[in-house]
């Protein structure tokens, strides 16, 4: 037993390192290593439970406290980090059902790793239908257990995707000078997908991006909020003109999209510029989440945040400089902005952001990224983006 434990620990360390590694490794090899490390984590956790039982103690599971109070923001790290707060769940009469379900779910994860498969939250819920009394009565129950497992293993540097639970949502769209190194789904042979060669179509980010490799000489990644703007830039091959990779977020980016941008920017060391609507939703919910994550899901920030991201626009000052058509700020906008100014460690940390939000509130207006169409449809391509990019160093942090 002792031997096994040691081995697991070593694996865990490797996994933790890998999660932030910048060195490129062949996809296959990395994938296998990761799988190994994840499995060891599961075995190690279950082993702890078993040991407790054998010793006549109540078994415990430890996960981070998920609350804003247990979050810290350090600019050098670049995202909201988990604090030291931990929640210990002891197996009691009351928690026995959830405990059983948690362990069953971990067993399912191990099985998925061994069979190199994955399951959505919903599939996992249906799998539980075979667990007799331990089955979930509805999906919110199984989602909660899965979130708990995710938080628990995040302490070991293992993400939900590594546990082989893949999200339900679509990935974003990609176009531009990027080669994605992947494997043929049939043969497992190495293949390369050229994101400049999709015609008017796009490369769709897969649900799990852990095992992808990249090759690119792009100068930056442009992360775009709306489908309409992404399509305009793509159909005019803006990526060619500016030598950049376009990523269409489609609103708040999915986990896969965030992880894709994070890995791409980390591994290729290229900056990420966010181009979103100028409103508290675009600034806070989309950009802030992309860059530093959110407070109440801090345990996943280490995987999903893109600390390299900078804010290209639309800035409150742009509304004035470009005489953009605006809408009045809605109640919810004002509330969101005030809340960010008051409570959000990110905006509080960056004076320039506080000033920008104050400016927005003072104007009482918001503008959409497509508002440049007022000048001419391609004003954004011909004027706005080039002008902005000339002063990239002045982008909001």
């Amino acid at each position: 037993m002792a031997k096994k434990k040691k081995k697991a620990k070593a694996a865990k360390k490797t996994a933790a390192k890998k999660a932030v590694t910048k060195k490129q490794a062949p996809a296959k090899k990395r994938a296998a290593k990761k799988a190994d490390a994840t499995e060891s984590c599961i075995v190690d956790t279950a082993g702890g439970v078993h040991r407790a039982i054998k010793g006549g103690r109540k078994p415990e599971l430890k996960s981070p406290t998920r609350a804003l109070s247990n979050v810290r923001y350090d600019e050098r790290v670049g995202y909201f980090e988990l604090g030291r707060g931990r929640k210990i769940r002891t197996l009691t009469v009351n928690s026995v059902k959830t405990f059983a379900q948690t362990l069953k779910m971990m067993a399912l994860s191990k099985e998925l790793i061994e069979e190199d498969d994955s399951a959505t939250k919903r599939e996992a819920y249906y799998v539980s239908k075979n667990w007799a009394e331990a089955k979930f009565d509805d999906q919110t129950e199984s989602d909660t257990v899965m979130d708990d497992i995710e938080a628990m293993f995040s302490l070991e540097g293992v993400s939900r995707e590594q546990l082989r639970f893949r999200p339900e949502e679509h990935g974003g769209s990609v176009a531009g000078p990027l080669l994605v190194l992947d494997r043929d789904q049939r043969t497992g042979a190495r293949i390369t997908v050229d994101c400049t060669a999709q015609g008017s179509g796009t490369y769709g980010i897969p649900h799990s991006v852990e095992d992808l490799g990249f090759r690119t000489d792009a100068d930056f990644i442009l992360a775009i909020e709306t489908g309409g703007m992404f399509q305009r830039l793509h159909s005019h091959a803006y990526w060619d003109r500016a030598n950049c990779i376009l990523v269409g977020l489609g609103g708040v980016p999915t986990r896969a999209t965030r992880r894709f941008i994070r890995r791409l920017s980390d591994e290729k060391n290229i900056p990420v510029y966010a181009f979103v609507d100028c409103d508290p939703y675009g600034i806070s919910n989309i950009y802030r989440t992309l860059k530093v994550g959110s407070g109440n899901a801090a345990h996943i920030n280490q995987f999903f945040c893109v600390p390299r991201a900078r804010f290209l626009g639309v800035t409150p000052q742009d509304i004035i400089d470009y005489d953009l058509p605006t809408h009045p700020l809605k109640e919810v906008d004002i509330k969101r902005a005030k809340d960010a100014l008051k409570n959000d460690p990110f905006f509080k940390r960056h004076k320039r952001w506080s000033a920008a939000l104050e400016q927005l509130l003072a104007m009482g207006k918001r503008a959409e990224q497509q508002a440049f169409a007022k000048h001419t449809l391609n004003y954004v391509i011909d004027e706005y983006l080039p002008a902005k990019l000339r002063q990239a160093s002045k982008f909001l942090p």
Partner: protein
Amino acid sequence: MARKKAPPLKKTAKRKATGRATAESMAKRQREISVSEFFTKNRHLLGFDNPRKALLTAIKEAVDNSLDACEEAGIPPDVRVELVVVKKDQRYRLVVEDNGPGIVRAQVPKIFGQLLYGSKFHSLKQSRGQQGIGISAAGMYGQLTTGKPVVITSRTGPRRPALEFHVSIDTAKNRPEVSKEREVEWDVRHGTRVEIELEGRYQRGKQSIDEYLRQTSIANPHVTIRYVAPDGESLTFERVTKELPAETTEIKPHPYGVELGLLIKMLKDTGARTLSAFLKQDFSRVGPKVAKEICANAGLTEKARPSRIARQEADNLIAAIRDTKIMAPPADCIVPIGGELLEASLKQQVPDAAFYTSSTRSPAVYRGNPFQVEVAIAYGGELQADDLARVFRFANRVPLLYQPGACLITRSIVGTDWKNYGLQQARGALPTGPLVVLAHVASVWVPFTSESKEAIADYPEIQKELKLAIQECGRRLRIFVNRRKREADAAKKKSYIEQYIPHIGQALQDILDLSDRSRDQAVTKLRDILERSRKM
């Protein structure tokens, strides 16, 4: 129709000479109005708004009188109520008969034929009737709508004759008129029987006579009521106890409840020779020390002659009273129903609940008037679980059927947070659940919101007591509900352990590649650990 234009002022002056009034001509038209005439025109003030309510009000007044009389005489009341159809949905004859002490000959006409005549108005003592209006108003309403006099039969003892009276009211004078008086055969030893013919409409249901009598029986466990409905069906509410409520004593006014006007009147009317004696004789809870203190505070000598106290001095006296600490009035003037009896009664009328409890508060005081509050609840069992709670309201043992929304009792129940006691409750509403709440306010003077005595007015002192009593019942209810829940929980936990531990074993085996034996050992061990902790 367009308004007729008034003539211009000049013409008016002229008209004044011919038609308009002067102080003298107006004076000639001034007249006294009798109180009977007043209430005839304003009968809704007394609860005779419409034929349905009139019928119930009349019965209520007659039954209240019977119960008050029996209790005063120390006789466990047997009351018989009969309603006879004279013309369906239009006219009824109401008969209320009791085994009380009867009424002496000379009093019968005034009691039934004069408004504002009674024994209870001036006394501070808990009783159902207060104002000396009720039964004569019922008779007046009967007379007004059917033209018939009230028929009273009374016998004051087994060796005295039974006398029958036909009494009407001369409304212009508020004086009784006796149109017939005779001896009759009557096979009761003593008692009173009242017959009133009146316009009315008979209906069953929420604010019905049946419901009123049923609730009366709940609040008066020492009373038996027999009721013969218009359709001939009869219904009996049997007493739960033969014990009468303790006799109440009359008290003198408490200084805190006296206003300037009343004080001046009392000073004028008193037989006491000195201010100090006046205070001690004419008020509750004023002894030599308190009297002295009041006089000192008012800057008056104790020897002052009461009739010589000037208005301004009386004013000082009032201020002095408010500044002096005086004991609360004695509480033996009020008698609650009592927890045991209240629960027994409630059980008899609401038999299918799973839990009963009650709370009787100590007497308290508002504006110098002693009062006492008691609350009982029934919960669970066969009671409707998704309806709003039912509420029974009582004032001096009389059920209140109308105007629940205006009543302090309802507001106190609504204002209690029943979520604390495991019930659901929407904002500003009664709690929802299998619950009956009964509340009784007893006082020497119950403050009603109107003369028809349908709802208790807002006094913070009374509300506080109501809330405390409700909360006490609520806490016991919570304990009951929690115990139930704990029992169910324990059973559930036991089965939890049985159900889910094998899955933990299975999962550990899957993840750790355990042998079947290791797995089973883990399961057994874990069961032990949990069973042990459960029992602690």
